[in-house]
């Protein structure tokens, strides 16, 4: 085996690929060849590091130097300075947001320091397109252990002991789910992986599939052995082409090594896995709709019971788990259930990956132990709010979740505490909002999403979310009446109570949660016709503060409708009847003389 004195890891996750990592990788390979270093230094394309905002990311080992936002022009310097002379290129290091201090090592960056990577253990460290790298990191050992030393019943017991709960949203205990499917009689069963990740802003499943596809395959195989399935499907959305490509490579490589297919590891256990590409419907993340879609029908949910464990895909007992859930499974069998259960809280074990988005300094993927506080996630890992603005709320669980205000930031994050706060773990999307976000507008945004993605089958979701959205729009337009709040609450409660599937039952959550914590913002829109955050255009008026105005005329020149008039060097005025509130004047004014409110 060839030995190298240094490894250069280039992130090949979708985030970094979008910011140009492919070109960086080519440039490094070319530069190494040019300097005759290609026999000494190896370039590895890895999966996602999670810190997508800082991409493209390049890490140099053995030092573990973390270079961020690398450009093609920087490559020659990295190679001749760092790789030849051993001098770290200071200017490309990550700078801590507040102290401006340069952080040379991966491990010391605040974004990573509080993280604990289990599901993402290999993401960013291995080349996902080489099964040997996964095996070198103890990959498939958990499967081998389960197949050769444990009975299916023991596998289920181990899973139950681990306390792992579904990472896709519901939080149902995985071991129990496997037990149901295993107890269902029948010679044919299916194991299914739900990779139809669709919450706006959530991309943990994509990162796992792109960065460590074998961990998902291994988890599925252990599950298949436990329930007695010999066939499985990975339902992955077609919008994830890189994930699909790497899954295909992974399946082919695992089959070649006898880790997948017939007579796995010579144990007599056989299982085949197929990939089914979804066609973009959010509702297909709901398990019964997902199975209908695999079967070739329109992706619409069906009532449960019968649960998939009894009557699932093609009416056969089936087990469905999410990508992140499966990625956790090999670790449980590698290190034992006790070790896994030692992380987390009483009822929520292990870790959870969150996708940090919104008004944060550090956005990206962060995997943290359950029980950590939201404040730690947002302010320590996330680096706090951009431009030192004031934190307002964080939306957890995507469009099905709810928002949590400042006063609850110290709540330990686990499945049950989030539900008590009117939010939910969901798939783990965290959208952080600051004082410039209008909560009515936020609720409208999420409801607009779920409304468009409703399958149209059940009345409360199809008709009800539409009416809730119309009322929210009316409030944002300044036409709200006091009764609207009651209507939203009663209609929201009925939809939660009567909708067919999880999508409908949780669709009102963003509205109900914002009403719970930010009712005053709704009231300001309705009663005072004001948007406190200055977002809802219809409720804003642009004014020129005479003391600040120098009469430069820049605003008048940029105004597209000629609403601003005034003498040179005299304070100008805005004719509000003409103003279309486009905001161009505010952007142009150098003296902060124009305000909206």
């Amino acid at each position, binding site marked *: 085996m060839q030995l190298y004195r240094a490894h250069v890891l280039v992130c090949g996750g979708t985030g970094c690929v979008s910011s140009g990592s492919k070109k960086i990788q080519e440039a490094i390979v070319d530069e190494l060849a040019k300097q005759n270093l290609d026999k000494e230094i190896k370039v590895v394309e890895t999966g996602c590091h999670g810190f997508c905002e800082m991409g493209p990311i390049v890490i140099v080992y053995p030092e573990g130097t973390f270079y961020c936002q690398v450009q093609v022009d920087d490559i020659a310097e990295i190679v001749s300075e760092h790789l030849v002379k051993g001098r770290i290129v200071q200017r490309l290091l990550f700078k801590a947001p507040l102290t401006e201090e340069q952080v040379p090592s991966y491990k010391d960056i605040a974004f990573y320091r509080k993280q604990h990577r289990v599901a993402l253990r290999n993401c960013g460290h291995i080349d996902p397109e080489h099964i040997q790298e996964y095996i070198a990191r103890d990959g498939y050992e958990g499967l081998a252990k389960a197949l050769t030393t444990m009975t299916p019943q023991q596998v289920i017991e181990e899973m139950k002991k681990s306390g792992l709960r579904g990472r896709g949203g519901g939080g149902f205990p995985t071991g129990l789910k496997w037990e149901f499917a295993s107890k269902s009689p029948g010679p044919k069963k299916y194991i299914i992986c739900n990779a139809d990740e669709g919450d706006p802003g959530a991309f943990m499943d994509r990162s796992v599939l792109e960065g460590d596809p074998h961990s998902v395959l291994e988890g599925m195989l252990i599950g298949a052995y436990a329930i007695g399935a010999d066939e499985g499907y990975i339902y992955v959305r077609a919008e994830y082409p890189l994930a699909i490509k790497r899954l295909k490579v992974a399946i082919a490589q695992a089959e070649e090594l006898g880790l997948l297919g017939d007579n796995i590891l010579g144990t007599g256990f056989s299982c085949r896995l197929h990939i089914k590409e979804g066609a973009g419907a959010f509702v297909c993340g709901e398990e019964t709709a997902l199975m209908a879609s695999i079967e070739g029908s329109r992706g619409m949910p069906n009532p449960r019971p019968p649960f998939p464990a009894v009557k699932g895909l093609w009416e056969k007992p089936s087990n469905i788990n999410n990508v992140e859930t499966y990625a956790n499974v090999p670790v449980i069998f590698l290190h034992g259930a006790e070790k896994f259960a030692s992380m987390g809280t009483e009822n929520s074990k292990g870790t959870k990956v969150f996708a940090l988005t919104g008004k944060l300094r550090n956005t990206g993927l962060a995997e943290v132990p359950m029980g950590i506080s939201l404040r730690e996630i947002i302010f320590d890992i996330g680096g706090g709010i951009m431009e030192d603005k004031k934190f307002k709320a964080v939306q957890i669980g995507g469009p099905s979740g709810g928002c949590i205000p400042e006063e609850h930031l110290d709540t330990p994050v686990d499945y049950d505490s989030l539900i008590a706060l009117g939010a939910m773990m969901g798939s783990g999307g965290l959208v952080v909002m600051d004082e410039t976000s209008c909560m009515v507008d936020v609720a409208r945004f999420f409801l607009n999403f779920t409304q468009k993605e409703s399958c149209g089958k*059940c009345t*409360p979701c199809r008709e009800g979310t539409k009416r809730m959205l119309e009322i929210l729009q009316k409030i944002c337009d300044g036409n709200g009446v006091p009764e609207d709040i009651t209507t939203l609450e009663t209609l929201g409660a009925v939809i939660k109570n009567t909708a067919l599937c999880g999508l409908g039952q949780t669709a009102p959550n963003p509205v109900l949660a914002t009403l719970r914590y930010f009712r005053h913002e709704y009231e300001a829109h309705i009663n005072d016709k004001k948007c406190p955050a200055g977002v809802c255009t219809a409720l804003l008026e642009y004014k020129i503060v005479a003391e600040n105005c120098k009469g430069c005329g820049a605003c008048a020149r940029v105004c597209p409708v000629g609403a601003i008039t005034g003498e040179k060097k005299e304070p100008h005025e805005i004719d509000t009847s003409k103003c279309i509130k486009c905001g161009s004047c505010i952007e142009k004014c150098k003296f902060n003389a124009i305000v909206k409110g």
Partner: protein
Amino acid sequence: MANITLTINGQKVTVPSGITVLEAAEMCGYSVPTFCHEKDLTAPGACRICVVEIKGWRNLPPSCVTTVAEGMEVETESPAVIEARKTILELLVANHPLDCMTCEKSGDCKLQDYAYRYGVTSPTPYEGEKKQFAVDDSNPYIYRDPNKCILCGKCVAICRAVADRNVIDYAFRGFNTKIATFMDTELKDSACVYCNRCVTVCPVGALSDRNMMGKGRTWELEKEEVTCTFCESGCKFDVNYKNGKVVGVTAKNPSAGRPLCLKGRLGTEFMKNPDKTDLPLVNKDGEFVEVSWEEALGIGPIVEKINALKK
């Protein structure tokens, strides 16, 4: 099958296990509204009008797909149930044309009946955008008004139940969902054979038998059930009388086999036509004249010979 005991509206009842809460409630004489449930055909649990309250359950489950269990405590008309049903009806009514005065279905419409039962009137608290789909009057047999459709899906299920049909299905998403043919064409350009099974199950005025339009209100019509004799299937049709006169034949129940064809319905309609003649007509000098069967078939001389031989 074993029996189980549960409580419905405070009354202890023993019913066969495995049946639905809806069936159990109906056995005890309680009427639970349904739109999408059709016995022996489909129970998609879609319309949610049949929700009931079950003690200890998180949500209000639809009774049509919930199986009874020992010790279950069911309320079919609790305040929460009534509120939910009323809200669902208000949502449907808010997106419905409400031209009940001229609607063919008036008097036999489930939406109308339940709105009456739960006191739902217009305007509802949920007024807003309404569906604006084109009406399909492309053919002489089925009149489709998608704006009246409540998307219960029974037409889809009953069409799918016939081999080689499957003409309609759900299309589009969310508020824009509708029942459509393949490529959303008019019925005349689809594989539809106008058996009118879909019309028989539509709970509202979205699908009407075009032959019957304008011929009388539902309550003015007397119906006589007849069994079709065109083939061995023996489907059921209704002969509709108004003031003692036949005004049309409508499809009633499909039978097993190959049921409810257009030929059967039109044939039955012809047999029941009061103007039909018993003798054939022959065009003589531009006028149809009644003649004997022998003459029409050109077998007069042969019949004469046979009759002569008989003697």
